[in-house]
């Protein structure tokens, strides 16, 4: 394999993973502040990473910063929040083209890295806290974004289903927090949360791409080494109890197509076993759900299975005409029974293995894909497990393992978004 991976701990709970392969033409530096959060912290940390992304003490406004990044061949500083099991990762990252493309021999990667590090360690301040007017603009935007989640009906339906699936669990805390908390959050409080985030989070840094990274890693180390830390290790995974009776949530909107999300839970902890099962069940165009619910019965445009395997949860999400809701739900349950009864061929099992192995091999073709892979393995699952190791594991899964997985899933939550009354009677 042409790519190389190196990992080191640079401070208490701070790790840098470097992935290099000269075939890549871009570089990505990703810094994740990982923490188990409640609603307050989820809101505050999400807002803080947005504030940090927009400026720093050298480029004090968003326009100045974007202009400098554009000058560095359209580099970007991005922000995001992701779930890692029970925790949330607050991400700040930079991406740029490799230095070999510079037209005037500029040092692109290290310049971009310095800008990113300045955003984190040397934000644009006023009277010792974030600039208040910037803070208010960004807060308003985050609130708007939360209110706009309904614009993407499919994503909204999944989010709402997950709130019920993980009710009263850390994994149920909404990404980006809540409007109620954000409205009350002051600039002073946010600045305190910023210091807390730097001090107490687990910090996972990835440097990946086609560049030479020795100097980049040194730059990163030099800034993190002096950071005051008060870190206690965090657990990423707890099992999610299945509800005695499936919870049902119905919401009505003025929509033409209903969205239905079914969530199932299992106590099985084997990620590869669960992943392979969900692929056979509803993750591939040759899967049971695609072939039956969509192709054979024409009930949906989409009906697919996704795994949150760390939490033993499988989601089936679909877009269905209201008159077909019950038919679609019944058919999904019938197909699950069919899997549990072993009504699938050895060929279907082999095909799913071939598909998953093919996609695992392609991890080596994107620097950011590899970075995400290693983050999940090394940090969340705490195992040094390469895509090649995963391929071996997938190949060893048997027919009985699939039947066992199918039998183990219990229905936990049904979420339905339906149209208003006039649409509902169609």
């Amino acid at each position, binding site marked *: 394999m042409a790519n190389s991976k190196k990992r080191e701990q640079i401070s208490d709970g701070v790790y840098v993973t470097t992935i290099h392969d000269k075939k890549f033409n*871009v570089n990505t530096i990703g810094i994740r502040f990982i923490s188990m959060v409640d609603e307050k912290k989820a809101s505050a940390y999400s807002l803080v990473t947005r504030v940090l992304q927009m400026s720093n003490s050298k480029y004090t*406004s968003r326009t100045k910063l974007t202009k400098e990044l554009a000058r560095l061949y359209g580099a970007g500083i991005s922000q995001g929040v992701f779930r890692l099991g029970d925790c949330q990762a607050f991400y700040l990252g930079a991406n740029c083209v490799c230095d070999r493309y510079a037209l005037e021999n500029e040092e692109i990667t290290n310049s971009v890295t310095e800008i990113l590090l300045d955003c984190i360690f040397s934000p644009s301040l006023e009277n010792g806290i974030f600039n208040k007017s910037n803070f208010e603009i960004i807060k308003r935007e985050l609130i708007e974004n939360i209110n706009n989640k309904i614009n993407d009906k499919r994503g909204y339906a999944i989010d709402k289903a997950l709130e019920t699936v993980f009710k009263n669990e850390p994994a149920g805390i909404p990404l980006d927090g809540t409007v109620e908390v954000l409205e009350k959050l002051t600039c002073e409080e946010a600045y305190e949360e910023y210091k807390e985030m730097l001090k107490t989070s687990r910090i996972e840094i990835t440097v990946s791409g086609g560049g030479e990274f020795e100097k980049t890693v040194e730059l990163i180390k030099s800034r993190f080494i002096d950071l005051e830390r008060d870190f206690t290790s965090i657990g990423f995974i707890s099992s999610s109890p299945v509800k005695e009776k499936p919870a049902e949530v119905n919401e009505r909107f003025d929509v033409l197509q209903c969205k239905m999300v079914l969530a199932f839970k299992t106590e099985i902890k084997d990620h590869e076993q669960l992943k392979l099962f969900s692929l056979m069940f509803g993750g591939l165009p040759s899967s049971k759900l695609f072939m039956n619910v969509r192709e054979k019965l024409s009930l949906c445009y989409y009906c697919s299975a996704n795994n949150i395997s760390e939490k033993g949860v499988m989601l089936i999400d679909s877009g269905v005409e209201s008159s077909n809701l019950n038919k679609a739900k019944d058919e999904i349950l019938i197909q699950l029974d069919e899997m549990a009864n072993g009504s699938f061929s050895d060929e279907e099992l082999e095909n799913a293995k071939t*598909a998953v192995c093919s996609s695992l091999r392609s991890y080596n073709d994107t620097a950011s894909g590899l970075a995400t892979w290693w983050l999940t393995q090394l940090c969340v699952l705490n195992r040094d497990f390469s895509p090649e190791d995963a391929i071996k594991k997938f190949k060893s899964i048997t027919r009985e393992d699939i039947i066992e997985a199918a039998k183990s899933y219990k229905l936990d939550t049904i979420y339905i978004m339906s149209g208003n009354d006039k649409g509902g009677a169609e």
Partner: protein
Amino acid sequence: MSIEKQTIKSKRLGESYYKIKHPSGLNILVWEMPEFSSVYALFGTKYGSINTKFKTKNDKDFIEVPEGIAHFLEHKLFENEDCDVFELYAKTGASGNAYTSFDQTAYLFSCTENYQESLKILLDFVQAPYFTKETVDKEQGIIGQEIRMCEDTPYRQVFFNLLRCLYVNHPVKIEIAGTVESIAKIDADLLYSCYNTFYNLNNMALAIAGNVKLDEVLAICDEHLKVKENPELETAFPNEPEEVNKEIFVQKMPVGTPLFAIGYKSVPFDGKERVKKELEASVLLNLICGSTSTLYKELYDEGLINSNFYTEVDSGDGFFACVFSGESKSPKEVFKRIKEEIERIKSEGIDSDLFEIIKKAEYGKMISGLNSAEKCATIMFESDLLVGVDAFENIEALASITEKDILDCIDILFDNKKTAISIVESNT
């Protein structure tokens, strides 16, 4: 069979690929990337939602077909006489898919092993249509659901409403999937007629990039491409006036902050001129209200736009539009300010420093646009099939753009008399 082989090179990037004019009439584009594991292939036709009127040398008059038929045909081609194409890909481990846009239908797969077998599947099924009354009826249900989903998607509605404001007659204003009513008119005979007209190798391209070998690809093509007579296809578009259809359209549906799309209509361009105009338009969009511009900062600071604001150029056979999209509590104010900024630039000229910065950023974007087999295959495919140029044409065109070029085209591309706004706002 004798073949015509050309190496297309970019000195600037140190990259190259092969272009082969196959005796069957097909253009084959192959980018060998031996250090990668993946392979990505696209096989498709210059036939999309806008091609609703056409004739061949065998027809006396132009034929008009229902809206959404290109997309319907794409769905149906996945069904062979004896099996479903996904079942065949399932054996090779490839991930297959397809898409239809305004001016193309493309069938694709990605994989990391057995690419030769998957390539054979791709070439075979796209050349073997099989439509019956039963299979056509069944598809109407699935596509009906897809259309419903699009109708519930405000981002899509705001964009198509804009096109309906900008265009009076040109079929770019119709939904790619058609409507539930229009697809009800589709039957097996119509599908065969469209298939036989547009799925001719002279009107198609094959692009493949990644861990492949040119000789292997060509050997498979020689064996699997079916030579057919060139039907000498002609497509026709209704006359499109230079003026817009209407200046504003507002739709109500469940959304948070209102969405808007502001478009500027211009005359269309072809070939290398189209590549150049797309770039100039992109640079101008950035100068007017890109994230580095003064106007962007003002609108952002005043809370009139948020980070979801973006710009794009939409162009093809007979259409060319520059679009600003985003979310705003006051879309009409954003529209007014954009119009004013365009007039200001026209009278005061452009910021030279910003122009150079934007060019550099565009250059960086093009490089990162070549960082995977998928992106390399797509750019070869679309440049050749849709525009008739090489994949590196945009990099060359960018290097040669001057401030004068930008000033010369602003009147054509951004005419405040040929503009419209579409808004989607909450119904509660």
